[in-house]
């Protein structure tokens, strides 16, 4: 192990050399906070944005300003989300919410399993997604059958069900809203609403 690899990289030495203006120190680093402060660990660090496998164009999911985002993916995981400098809306900027988006999508507190609470139950139970989907389809059809109305009390043709409702859509995609309204309308459900009314 030579001298250079042992003591010379010590920040305090490098700083002293820089202050003294000796060769080998970071040039012009009189405050000792520039090159002098680098370590081998720092030298090996690379921004996640440069080591990502791919960059995916996206949009902030919070408010309706619609700031552009770039999603950095490595090993099929989101490793960073940054503002997109190309966006005429945001020119790369994000506010605290937009800047926290990576935590939103990689949050270990996210619930990733179906939870089920039976009537009068006191706790959650496990349920597999396929069964849950089937049960929900059954509930929709049973409620629809039980509450179907061809004509209302004034004899007007309404062909609908007022037995179930949906709320939500403002945080979803246009394509998702389209399917909710389309399926709801075909089922005869009219109480389909979202935050835009709130």
């Amino acid at each position: 192990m030579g001298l250079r690899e042992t003591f010379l990289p010590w920040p305090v030495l490098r700083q002293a050399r820089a202050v003294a203006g000796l060769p080998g120190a970071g040039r012009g680093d009189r405050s000792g906070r520039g090159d002098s402060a680098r370590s081998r660990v720092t030298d090996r660090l690379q921004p996640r944005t440069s080591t990502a496998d791919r960059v995916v164009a996206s949009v902030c999911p919070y408010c309706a300003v619609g700031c552009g985002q770039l999603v950095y993916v490595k090993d099929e995981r989101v490793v960073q989300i940054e503002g997109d400098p190309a966006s005429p809306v945001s020119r790369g900027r994000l506010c605290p919410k937009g800047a926290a988006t990576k935590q939103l999508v990689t949050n270990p507190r996210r619930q990733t399993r179906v939870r089920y609470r039976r009537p009068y139950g006191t706790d959650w139970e496990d349920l597999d997604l396929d069964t849950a989907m089937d049960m929900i389809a059954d509930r929709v059809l049973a409620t629809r059958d039980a509450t179907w109305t061809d004509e209302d009390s004034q004899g007007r043709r309404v062909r609908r069900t007022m037995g179930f409702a949906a709320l939500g859509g403002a945080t979803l995609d246009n394509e998702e809203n389209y399917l909710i309204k389309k399926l709801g309308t075909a089922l005869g459900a009219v109480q389909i609403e979202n935050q835009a009314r709130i």
Partner: protein
Amino acid sequence: MVQGSNMAECHPVGFQWVMAAKARGATLIHVDPRLTRTGALADLHVPLRAGTDIALLGGLINYVLCNGLEFREYVVAYTNAATIIGEQFRDTEDLDGLFSGWQDDKAGYATDSWQYEGTSVASSAGKRERGTRARHDGQGRSHERQATGRGHEHGSHGAALSDLSNIRRDETLRHPRCVFQLLKRHYSRYTPEMVARVCGIPVDVFLQLARMVTDNSTRDRTTAWAYAVGWTQHTVGVQYIRAASVLQLLLGNIGRPGGGILALRGHASIQGSTDIPTLYDLLPGYLPMPHPDAHGSLDEYVADDSADTGYWGNMRAYTVSLLKAYWGEAATADNDYCFDYLPRITGDHSTYQTVKAQLDGSCKGYFLNGENPAVGSANAKAQRLGMANLDWLVVRDFALIESATWWRDGPEVESGELRPETVGTEVFFLPAAAHTEKDGSFTNTQRMLQWHHAAVDPPGDARSDLWFWFHLGRRIRAKLAGSTAERDRPILDLTWDYPTSGEHAEPSAEAVLREINGRAADGTCLSSYQQLTDDGATACGCWIYCGAYADGVNQAARRKPHTEQNWVAPEWGWAWPANRRLLYNRASADPEGRPWSERKAYVWWDEGKGRWTGHDVPDFQPTKRPDHRPPPGARREDALSGIDPFIMQADGKGWLYVPAGLSDGPVPTHYEPQESPVPNLLYGQQHNPARQTSRRTVDPYQPSGDEPGSGVFPYALTTYRLTEHHTAGGMSRWLPYLSELQPEMFCEVSPELAREAGLEHLGWATVVTAREAIEARVLVTDRMVPVRVHDRIVHQVGVPYHWGGNGLTTGDSANELTHLSLDPNVHIQETKALSCDVRPGRRPRGADRIALVEEYRRRAGITAETGTAPRTAASPGGTA
């Protein structure tokens, strides 16, 4: 001008452009009860009493009209200022705060007397009033329209007018019944002194504000107004925006660059979920949901709701194309394109009515798709008790939000009102995919669609809503296969065959966007709504989005850097309609088609090329000359002249006065909020008479003004958002960063109020209304200013509404305090202006909390009737 919005904190990155404008010399004014970062960065911050914006805007309108400051040439040519109103009309000036047509028995207006002179009762709604269907007399119909929320039906296009050529106009604006004179009279009492007494804005500040606005509204300069839910969440919310429209039209600030009234919307795609609505009264593209009285067939529907003139005259093509998108081959000319498959609405079926239906037990199932009504909707207790009465509830979200767990740990469990063992609701929680885990488009607040691409697969059971609704529909269709029941035909005939991919069979979002965009008979993608036909040859899921997939290319996914295109940036995303970035931009040129000034040039007539041109896509027929005048009897857009910029309106004019389409009056008028610490100083009529009240024990109202008991709730209360949290918290209260930045529920009070109520900075306060008591940390700050209004000082309390019991940061919800009194046009609740009491210390726990609120109700003498009378007893107006 930012009013009804705290843009710097709620739309921070959008606000950078306001700051950029300011750096270039623009003046910024913020009108808001609180001094926030928006006000701090403004040239002028004007505090006002929450709930009085119409009084201020009315004051500005009066200032413009009294001083002759209107943009005369614009007003005469582009608005209905010159139009003469029928003789039967009576204004609030005549009836002490009511308009003609008020019906006590219906608690609503018959709007016949509001019409233009010379047009037969003109609105599409009016046609119904004339009794084309004989079921009801005219007055009954009008009330019913209000009750069904059908005042909203003209939301995107204004009412139809018959016989444009019969409209009488006086372009000197002197006729006593022309709209201009009518406005003058209506707003004559909105003097600077009255503004001071109602809003608490000193006369000199008002005059300074008025001068700043009018000096900056000329040929050379334009003023923009930005608002958010600070304007919409009122019992007279639609009229707030109308008041701004009147003022901005008078000043010539609509359709011009740097002008406009800008709605700052709070969710990534709340604009999209209005355009492609998950709303009860609309079909995609603002087509109304049909009503059984007038819409038995497609022909009746179109005849009833389309306009003969203006672009809305093409409504049949838009409707038939939608029905073809929904029902494909099954929709034919012979079966009215399956028009009968559409369910009918017969009343207000909005979300707050759904809650009442849940409480009544008639609504038994509920899907929550990324919404948390137990925190985010008004009267949170009513929301939870409604859910406790369901058979089943499906919650799709990222985390176990309060709307998923109220049955085990909600406030009613704490108070003993609910026990899990007695709640029969079956709850399914299904985890949702994030935007990084699915393809799709958001429509931002500028009507711009932007595509986001899936970056990774969703974890565990998490799925997109596209996946959920597609596969739910697929399962339902499979279960109904072979059914011969007539009611099942719409499901079985539905086009529901989107291609899927991947291990989870994720449906293709691009295929859905292609369907929304529309296709021609040969299957190619359409590029413009002008290609839509009413003969079944075209299919289009949302006519205003036609062109989003033009040339078979996902236009929403375009991302040409702003550095490589002009300042309008037309090649970033895609804006509806037709990629226009500024609506009604024909108004940016003078009647001859020349820019009003070089500085404000945007779209203009190019005589050499014989067409409109400019920086943006012209919002006008491209080759219609400025001097074009339509022949008598012309229809649809061809009925509009070369000087009619407002092409969706039947007369092509900006409406200063609305002859039909609104439930609560043709001209904005100040009424006090449902709950107000002061009487209405402008009229005997205290509240918006047409507002909706719930009349339920779970939703009691407080006395107002000088009514006995109102002193029990002496302070004004307003709710708001913080930069670091998002609405009901589902996307923020589970995040460590954001929870650390805003760790606790608080209330903001002035030092004066803190002294009066005995509150200590950083101590606890209990805020009480007739609904509930909540606790919050106290933030004593001189950013909250007591306002001098009427003969008293009114203190104001501010509460953010993000908190609930779950997540990393927890606290009481502001919506425990709020009530279900609604705007009659759009059924939005009044959560921006209420009254309350504040006391030091934490709230009582358990049953004691209920006892405290009951004691307040007793002291205030609250009964089921309190605050529910539509018309104020002393007001004589209803006898007219």
